[in-house]
């Protein structure tokens, strides 16, 4: 997030898109609901489903799946046309405005309505509301990123925020809500193929040299490696021979599971380090038992870039060990010694090598976490990014055209499917399925469908259906719900037994390589 979670209550207008906030980030949703209920903030929700947070909205816009760039361009069209944008901010702090203006020129409310299904006057209303705010905050999640145009979507949100001067101010910002506890940290720590810690690029000779010296090695690879969504196809082709997986379960979370399974089975060596025998671990050659968060010291970085402590409360079960200890042990056996007395020593090494974490130590974050960038031990941390300047100088507008999703409906597959999460389950369910209470509240997969569609298909709540896409099929029960809109069904992806990702499309965003989980075409039929 460019801003903090607390900052949400300072916004005059909040725009939520592609985030089922009350179910996926419940505590953040409480900030939004408080802002709207008690502080007079206005809320715009743009989402294909009538999700719970829409009950609190002044405006709920319902776009067709995969049309985000179009409605965002449409809002900017209105804002520029009516001269509601932050002229001084745009002039002083940004470049590329003319390119943006040219691109959004044709996105008139009528044109946008034809693509998105959002009535023109509602779009205009939303544009005026957003642009009229002193501070407007944008919150988004996977509903924006999990598209073949995910990168475009995110850039378009940044365009909109900059256009109205909402970056770098209290109550503003473009705020991605991270799905998993330490996604932010995994990225910050260089768990990415093109960067070391703190986003220092592997292609940068200086950065490489720094790491080589610090680690006492030579010839670190100088080209970016493979992204996860590229690794599996390579495994399928036989080019990737070994995969070492820590704490992930791609056999439920991957798009196009049938393909993923074949890919993993094609490896010469699959090692899985996890706390449970997950679907992925079951097909591994070696499984290594690890400690869970309650059994170790360390830090997580939350979605607002706040580095916070985790602390050991229990011993790990049996012979399970902390993940870093396992890796260090293995590394030693491969001839490279890594030894740390404890997690805090690792953090000290991270701080030495990472400018944005340089001021962070366990002492400083004992009571309250710090927001990076935190460049020195005296620095108070950075709750709001881009206050006086963008990291790279001026903010850049990108003129981005709308591109249709990779798959659309046709006669054979007449319904759209979108996937997501439910409140009571988490990711692939390895942890939440162990709680009787959570399972009791959300026991099994379901297909959410609108009352009209249900009627058209002759379906009733609880009916078993077979739902199929071009890639596979699953069976699940029908849940008739007002949340769904006509023509689109929703399935949560948590459930291995009826894994929604047997259906989803592995088509990737060309830059972020994120699969298009949020749109594919399906058909459904009642199971006799």
């Amino acid at each position, binding site marked *: 997030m460019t801003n903090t979670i607390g900052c949400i209550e300072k916004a005059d207008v909040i725009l939520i898109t592609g985030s089922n906030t009350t179910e996926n980030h*419940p505590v953040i949703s409480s900030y939004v609901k408080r802002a709207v209920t008690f502080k007079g903030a206005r809320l715009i929700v743009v989402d294909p489903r009538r999700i719970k947070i829409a009950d609190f909205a002044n405006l709920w816009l319902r776009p067709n799946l995969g049309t985000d760039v179009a409605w965002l361009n449409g809002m900017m069209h209105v804002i520029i046309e009516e001269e509601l944008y932050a002229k001084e901010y745009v002039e002083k702090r940004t470049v590329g405005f003319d390119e943006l203006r040219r691109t959004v020129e044709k996105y008139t409310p009528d044109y946008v309505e034809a693509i998105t299904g959002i009535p023109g006057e509602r779009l205009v209303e939303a544009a005026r509301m957003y642009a009229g705010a002193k501070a407007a905050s944008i919150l988004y999640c996977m509903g924006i990123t999990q598209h073949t145009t995910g990168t475009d979507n995110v850039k378009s949100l940044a365009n909109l925020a900059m256009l109205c001067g909402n970056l770098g101010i209290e109550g503003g910002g473009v705020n991605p809500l991270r799905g998993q506890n330490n996604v932010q940290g995994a990225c910050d720590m260089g768990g990415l*193929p093109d960067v070391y810690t703190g986003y220092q690029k592997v292609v940068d000779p200086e950065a490489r040299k720094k790491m080589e010296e610090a680690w006492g090695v030579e010839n670190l690879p100088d080209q970016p490696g493979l992204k996860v969504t590229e690794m599996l196809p390579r495994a399928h082709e036989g080019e*990737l021979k070994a995969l070492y997986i820590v704490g992930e379960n791609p056999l439920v979370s991957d798009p196009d599971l049938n393909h993923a399974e074949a890919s993993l089975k094609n490896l010469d060596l699959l090692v899985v380090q996890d706390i449970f025998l997950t679907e992925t671990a079951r097909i591994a050659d070696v499984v290594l038992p690890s400690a869970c968060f309650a059994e170790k010291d360390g830090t997580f970085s939350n979605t607002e870039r*706040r580095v916070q402590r985790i602390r050991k409360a229990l011993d790990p079960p049996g012979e399970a060990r902390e993940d870093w200890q396992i890796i260090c042990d293995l590394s030693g056996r491969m001839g490279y010694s*890594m030894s740390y007395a404890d997690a805090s020593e690792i953090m000290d090494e991270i701080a030495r090598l990472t400018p944005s974490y340089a001021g962070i130590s366990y002492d400083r974050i004992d009571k309250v976490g710090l927001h990076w960038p935190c460049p020195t031990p005296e620095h108070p941390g950075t709750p709001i990014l881009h206050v006086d300047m963008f990291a790279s100088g001026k903010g850049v507008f990108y003129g981005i055209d709308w591109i249709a999703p990779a798959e659309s409906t046709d006669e054979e597959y007449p319904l759209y499917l979108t996937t997501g999460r439910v409140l009571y389950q988490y990711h692939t369910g390895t942890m939440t399925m162990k709680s009787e209470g959570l399972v009791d509240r959300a026991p099994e997969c379901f297909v959410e469908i609108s009352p009209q569609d249900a009627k058209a298909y002759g379906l009733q709540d609880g009916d078993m259906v077979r739902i199929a896409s071009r890639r596979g099929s699953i069976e699940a029960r029908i849940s008739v719900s007002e949340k769904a809109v006509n023509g689109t069904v929703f399935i949560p992806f948590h459930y291995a037994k009826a894994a929604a990702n047997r259906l989803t499309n592995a088509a990737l965003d060309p830059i972020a390589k994120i699969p298009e989980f949020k749109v594919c075409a399906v058909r459904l039929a009642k199971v006799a």
Partner: protein
Amino acid sequence: MPSEHKITINGNPLTFESGETILEVARRHSIDIPTLCFLKGATPTGACRMCVVEVAGADRLLPACATQAVDDMVVQTESPQVVEARRVILQLLMASGNHNCAIRGGDSASWTEFQLQVQQADGAEELCPVWGDCRLQDLAYRYQVTGQDMPHTEARYPMETVNPFIVRDFSRCINCGRCVQACNEIQVNNAIDFGYRSADSKIVTPGDRPLRDSDCVFCGECVQACPVGALVEKDARYVARPWEEKKVRTTCTYCGVGCQLYLHVMDDKVVRVTGVPDTPPNYGRLCVKGRFGYSFINSEERLTKPLVRKNGELQEAGWDEALDLVAQKLGSIKDAHGPDSIGVLSSARVSNEENYVIQKFARAVLKTNSVDHCARL
């Protein structure tokens, strides 16, 4: 610049900011005015009247939580009149419903009878499930009152136990309304409110249905707010007693909000989870996953030994055997096919320190940049 506003509490001259209540000024200066219904972050209701204080010139006692400090105000927080008022309130509360902690008192015969009745209602052989962790009990002790001088009023509504997370025990409810504020003002789930009138008063969902059939999302904010034993985590009820627990502060392991929470540990098991108050990012709030989704930690299904595939089956092995095998295979694959034939997936589930070590291993030892995690998925 220090504030110019002055107030005198218990003879101490203190400064305050305009808009502050007497309660806020007192607490900021470590003067303890007791409260039951006051909930930080929500509108003060003044419902319980525990926080009444004597203000010079006022013709009656005023609730400190809802009375703003005014220049030159003179306040007494523990005058005999104040103490007497608090004692009466506490006695009435202690005499109503099933407050069967030792504080309740009563002569030994009726105590035993009462205790047996309550234990039967509770299905337990112990004192109240929050004995030792109860505001009412603390205050009754502080003001040395029991319930014995007031006529006992029976509980009107049966216990609700039909959801997996929360037991609602109306026999111990003091109608302070903190749960209602926690639900409607802190979490804004709007699932519960006051229902019925005066003596029949009860905290209800719309239509007085059980929580599981309401808008309740089991965030447990109401449980955390309840000052007595009326709302208790089901799995911790009669299991966890505060003096037997160790509280460890940590960060939630589920979503990216990073809520700060306490794991309450007893006999090497997590027995309940509470939010860390007054601390960002969550200021005590949690959701159902963070508060109630902890049973995986002590699950029987946890992996406890390395497994190695032999004859097509995963079989238990020692660490040396498993790690030597991995080291040898990774080495030979790297030699035969080059570093880019190996991929590593680190994890959004593990710590920063571990992610760091994993990518360092991939880059420095395996010599590949093919390290990623599943955030895209």
